[in-house]
């Protein structure tokens, strides 16, 4: 079974996504992959994400 295309993945969430959006979604997906590959993930393992939860005041 072939890998789902970007528009297939988007249609999982938004079934009404029109065909006309397919090429732009493909382009964005390729851009995202290219950006992801450029990230130095080896330097991230011990970095705390900029998300914290404060039990006194709710999510921040």
């Amino acid at each position, binding site marked *: 079974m072939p890998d789902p295309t*970007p528009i297939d*993945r*988007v249609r*999982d*969430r*938004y079934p*009404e*996504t029109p065909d*006309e*959006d397919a090429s*732009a*979604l493909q382009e*964005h*997906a390729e*851009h*995202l992959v290219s*950006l*992801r590959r*450029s*990230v*130095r*993930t080896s*330097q*991230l393992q011990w*970095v*705390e*994400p*900029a*998300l914290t939860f404060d039990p006194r*005041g*709710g*999510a*921040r």
Partner: protein
Amino acid sequence: MTIDPPALATAAALIRQQDLSSRELTEACLTRIDELDEVLRAFITVEASSARQQADAADDLIRRGRFNGPLHGLPVAIKDNLSVANRVTTRGSALFRDHVADDNAGVVDRLAAQGSVHLGTTNLHEFALGVTTENPHFGICRNPWNHDRTPGGSSGGSAVAVATGMALGAIGSDTSGSIRIPAAACGVVGLKPTYGRVSTYGCYPEAWSLDHVGVLTRTVEDAAILFDAVSGHDPRVASSLDLAPSRTVSDLDSERPLRIGIEESFFFADVDPGVESVVREMLQSLADAGAQVQAVSVPSLSDAIYALTVIDTAETTAFHDEQLRHHGNEYGPDTRLLVECGALPSAVDYLHAQQIRSQVRDDFRRAFSQVDVIASPTLPIQTPRVGEPVIQVEGRERDRDGELMRLVGPANLAGIPAVSVPCGLLHEMPVGMQFMGPALGEAAVLRAAAAVESRYRLPDVPRRRATYG
């Protein structure tokens, strides 16, 4: 005879001295709107009748020796993604064309408490999800310097209103540059404050962790006045900083020499040569006048575009999820696509992006231990034409929206204050210079902007061009 609307600080002084009435000022702005807005489309709703009533009430108080605050009687416009109680707040969307807000946005309450006159609500990119203000439902907003050019966005209407004197100041919102992009394109001052410094209550969300509310004005002093008036804690918003309102106006006159940082590898990479030349000339002028200019490093900026792309699209999609599923056919094509794009990143992508954000924040903090501000062009390109999604720079094609957001997004990622100030003209279009400062360093970025303003004052938009393009 109607007057030419003066700068906000000048108008405030004239009103205080009773040399000018709020009604005269308000009429001057309404006249400009009548003259220009059919073409420029800066406003979605003009509240002429209630503005006149508010102006008359302000004048009545003045005659009795009472002033509500520093904005008393001054006509201000509000971006139409900020709720105004009992008024239509469209968010630039056909879905909300008739939506009447129940209560005021936090910033609208502040403006009212300080005595300002509410002129109306300004045009924006649909849902603030874009950077051109080419709104398919309420009209294409146009740049008053050249009607064929975009005013930028998403707070394009606010910038156009201020640039043309349709309002003395305006409120905007900024998630990936939406105040500074139109400020640069239209030749006005645009301040995005520190994250949480101005209430986002009642501001229709784009991306919660990147959303900021800020100000657009004609001068730096005006920006300081308006920012001081609207800043402060709002307990209804979890991210609101528990701080008293700012007092930046009094800091603008500091004599201390500015220390300006230059980060070359991100903020001056692939900048249009004409824009770069204008910005570097201004930097040299600032150095000649005594500013200390030195190189700084923010290494994690190389990953900032990835982090911004993931966080902005994922948070936008999370917010719009139900609405797009049920009303996608009422979205414009570009905003629908943007919300769809946010379904592509994974949870791991989002968390990596938040790790990068920690690095960017920490790298900026280290840089600001050496300098007061970091300077850059606001936009790396010349102002694009309306309807031109791909632009050419030195023979290479570039994505317009990516370019417009490229140098302004990092300040949203780090939550630090940033201002755009006009620093020159290129091919008869304004060029903006950006200053970023440490968290809560609004006074520093405004002081740097004031130094630019003291060396270069952009002329008013020529009336003929504002009218005919």
